[in-house]
């Protein structure tokens, strides 16, 4: 294993920048204006984004395995090493993390309470997420996985909506259970195999009997299933989203949910290929159920934010489907889906946030005609159409190629589950069209219609204007969504080698141990 030379300290930089930034903000002289702190955060995040791009540049897409590795013993006694590395699976997620945290900081406004803590927590999350994506040691991963929890809980419970205490507590309990299960699985792996090596590389699971493997994998599935979230462990998500402020929702949907799917691929699929192959048919059905459940529940929502939250439940199901199918194309699709869902759901939450800030409501029975050019939110509406179409998988945008890869990679293995998931993709169009048509079409209004045109037609609506700087991040995200949809090779070439290797290794191991080869 290569010891970290000077040029290989890049990954540590990705952790240091946000962590040090977070500390700087915490120690910033009291009384600094929120605008100043926001600016400092944005600068720090720009540096983080730049460094992430440097990592992309230094990354060799043609090489398989971990790159830019760094390894230092930390607590050797318990097998906790400071081991970092990046591959085609984690690299896009690191990039998304930097970009979306930047977006979250940019769209943060009106933080009057404790701005230092707020921005510090934002950076802390970003650093912890980077750590989790880059960790090559199971315990290190777990450490970062847990580290991200507390700041997020704070962000919801201090800067959230009216019911924030309930939502934050629920989030905490769910995620704590998730953490316990994951830690349990990791420790169990060590315990059962008698090894204290928590590094990612060796596949220990083949030393285990199938029963043990299934048990540990089951714990991981539920643990990460809570985080993703998969039905029926999703209940914390809609509440967390509805109570969280817009930037936190952007982080939650765009970045933090990806920890779950990343963990599933990295630790579920990679550590337990044999058991995974055993469970795969069930996982595919689970994915289809999650997709359909999320979509159908979204149809019945009247709160825009809850609707988008349930759409996340549906869309993350595709990743499970792809992981279950475990073909090169499907796994590449999973990476695509993580990235595109990150971008699209961030965009959706951002736009819903603008609507909420201007109208004071997210109720689809109340909002009408927001496309009105002079008095409504026309640009927000236009971007919303782009966002929902991308989410519904319309070609030319990121959602389509992701879904296409997932479906194309999975249909040969699990035709029924794939077809059912495609129905879910069709249902996405239903609820998002309801959203756009109710809130943005028709005569402008922010009151429930009385049905009497004499009354409805006389209400003058006086919404505050949307400043260009409010929509600028949304325009950037929409552009990224379209760009990724039109030039998917830009992402594909980063991840293809890694996902192909992952699928090949996993299926080979599974085949060897089941005696096929």
């Amino acid at each position: 294993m290569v010891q970290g030379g000077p040029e290989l300290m890049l990954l540590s930089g990705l952790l240091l920048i946000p962590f040090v930034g977070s500390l700087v903000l915490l120690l910033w002289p009291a009384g600094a204006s929120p605008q100043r702190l926001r600016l400092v955060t944005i600068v720090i995040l720009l540096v983080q984004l730049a460094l992430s791009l440097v990592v992309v540049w230094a990354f060799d897409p043609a090489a398989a395995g971990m790159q830019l590795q760094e390894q230092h013993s930390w607590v050797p006694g318990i097998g906790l090493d400071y081991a970092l590395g990046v591959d085609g699976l984690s690299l896009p997620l690191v990039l998304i993390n930097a970009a979306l945290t930047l977006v979250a900081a940019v769209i943060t406004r009106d933080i009057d309470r404790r701005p230092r803590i707020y921005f510090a927590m934002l950076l802390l999350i970003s650093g912890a997420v980077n750590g989790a994506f880059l960790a090559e040691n199971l315990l290190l991963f777990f450490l970062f996985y847990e580290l991200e929890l507390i700041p997020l809980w704070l962000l919801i419970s201090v800067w959230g909506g009216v019911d924030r205490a309930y939502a934050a507590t629920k989030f905490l309990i769910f995620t704590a259970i998730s953490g316990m299960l994951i830690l349990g699985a990791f420790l169990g792996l060590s315990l059962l195999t008698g090894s204290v090596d928590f590094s990612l590389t060796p596949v220990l699971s083949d030393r285990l009997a199938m029963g043990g493997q299934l048990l540990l994998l089951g714990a991981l599935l539920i643990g990460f299933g809570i985080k993703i979230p998969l039905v029926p462990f999703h209940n914390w998500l809609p509440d967390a989203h509805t109570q969280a402020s817009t930037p936190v929702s952007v982080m939650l949907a765009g970045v933090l949910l990806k920890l779950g799917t990343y963990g599933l691929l990295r630790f579920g699929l990679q550590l337990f290929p044999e058991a995974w192959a055993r469970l795969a048919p069930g996982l595919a059905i689970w994915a289809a159920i999650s997709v359909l459940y999320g979509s159908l529940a979204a149809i019945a929502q009247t709160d825009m934010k809850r609707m988008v939250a349930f759409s996340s439940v549906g869309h993350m199901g595709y990743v499970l489907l792809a992981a279950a199918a475990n073909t090169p194309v499907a796994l590449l699709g999973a990476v695509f889906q993580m990235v595109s869902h990150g971008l699209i759901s961030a965009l959706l939450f951002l736009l819903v946030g603008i609507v909420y800030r201007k109208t004071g409501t997210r109720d689809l029975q109340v909002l009408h005609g927001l496309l009105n050019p002079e008095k409504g939110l026309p640009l927000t509406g236009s971007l919303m159409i782009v966002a929902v179409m991308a989410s519904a998988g319309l070609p030319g945008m990121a959602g389509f190629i992701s879904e296409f890869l997932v479906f194309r990679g999975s249909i040969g293995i699990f035709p029924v589950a794939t077809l059912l998931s495609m129905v879910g993709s069709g249902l996405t169009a239903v609820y998002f069209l309801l959203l756009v048509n109710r809130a943005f079409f028709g005569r402008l209004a922010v009151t429930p219609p009385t049905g009497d045109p004499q009354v409805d037609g006389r209400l003058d609506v006086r919404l505050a204007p949307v400043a260009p700087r409010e929509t600028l991040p949304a325009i950037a995200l929409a552009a990224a969504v379209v760009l990724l949809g039109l030039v998917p090779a830009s992402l594909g070439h980063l991840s293809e080698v890694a996902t192909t290797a992952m699928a090949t290794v996993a299926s080979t191991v599974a085949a060897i141990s089941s005696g096929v080869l």
Partner: protein
Amino acid sequence: MPVISAELVHADPSLGVEELQRRLLTGQTLLSDTPDHLLEVVAVLESYGEVLDAYSINLIYQAEKQFLNPVPIFKYLDGDLSLAKIWRHLNHDRINFEYAEYCQKAMFWHGTGGMDAYLDSPEFAANCRAIIAAKSRRDPLLALLNPLFPAFLPELIRSAATTHALGQFWRVMSDLFLDLARAERAGSVRTIPQVVAFMKDALVAAAANPIRYGVAIAGQHFWVLPPEANLTFLVDVAVPYVEAVFLRGMPFLGTVSFNAQAQQISPDQAQFAYGALYADPLPSMGAGIPPSLLMQDMYRHLPESLHQWYRDRTRGEGDVRVKICMSFQKAMFCVTNAAINGTMPHPLETSDPAQQAANRAYAQAWATRLAAGRTDCLAS
């Protein structure tokens, strides 16, 4: 459930029939007299006056110089074919004459009043025959089309006649509105009642102006609307115009479905209520709302005083054209007010019970009609 904050929506009460009738009979203006209203009405009418000036010039140009031209490519250029003008035309840096044509179409299509009746008279048919005969001699296309489609050219001539008449009407109105602005600057008009009285006097003074229209074909002059038709400003053009544009209007594609099975549009044009006094200003500048063109034209000629007043309110420049529409609606109520006052059967001060009853009936008829309009703009 989220609570809707009160400042986001705003509604003024509508005025009922009784209140409208009372205001008409007591000589009180429909629009309440406030300094803001005075600024809005006078300034918006000033910009309207400038726009109408351009509309009027163009409609008369079209009726006289583009008469029966099958491909009137340059009809909006008023005969000025300089490169600069063509460039401004292509860049759409111009008045939206399409809206003038839209009003002309509304007036022609609704077809009320004396001029419309004259268009169906045998005298008019004889004029048409003479014109078509003269025109066909030089224009082989028309010579071919007329025998095949005998009703084609007379209908176009009727349309041109309305175009010219509307041009003449707007000439008067444009001058009136610009005079009003001058009078306000001079200080002779300081209140809404004075605005209404100013307009009433001007309308009464112009009432008997003759409406005539003739075209020149190969140097020879032909009457379309001859003097002997005795068409006059107020009853033959102004009243049909108010009926067609202020009151009835035409359904907007952007807010009303034309689907026959949906039956959203009344089969009886007299029941239409899409005109300027009824329309909802909120969708202005949206898709399928033709008055948006007028709002844009007025926006480009907005007096600075009113522009500043708009900048200080709601979204400032962001929703300025909706605010123009709201002010415009108030101004149109004032114009209507002046027209009603001017056509009241008897003086309001009369003590003769029979005359009072006639006035009451007249005021009630108008009040009933206006009550369904956007009278909510009158109060605040």
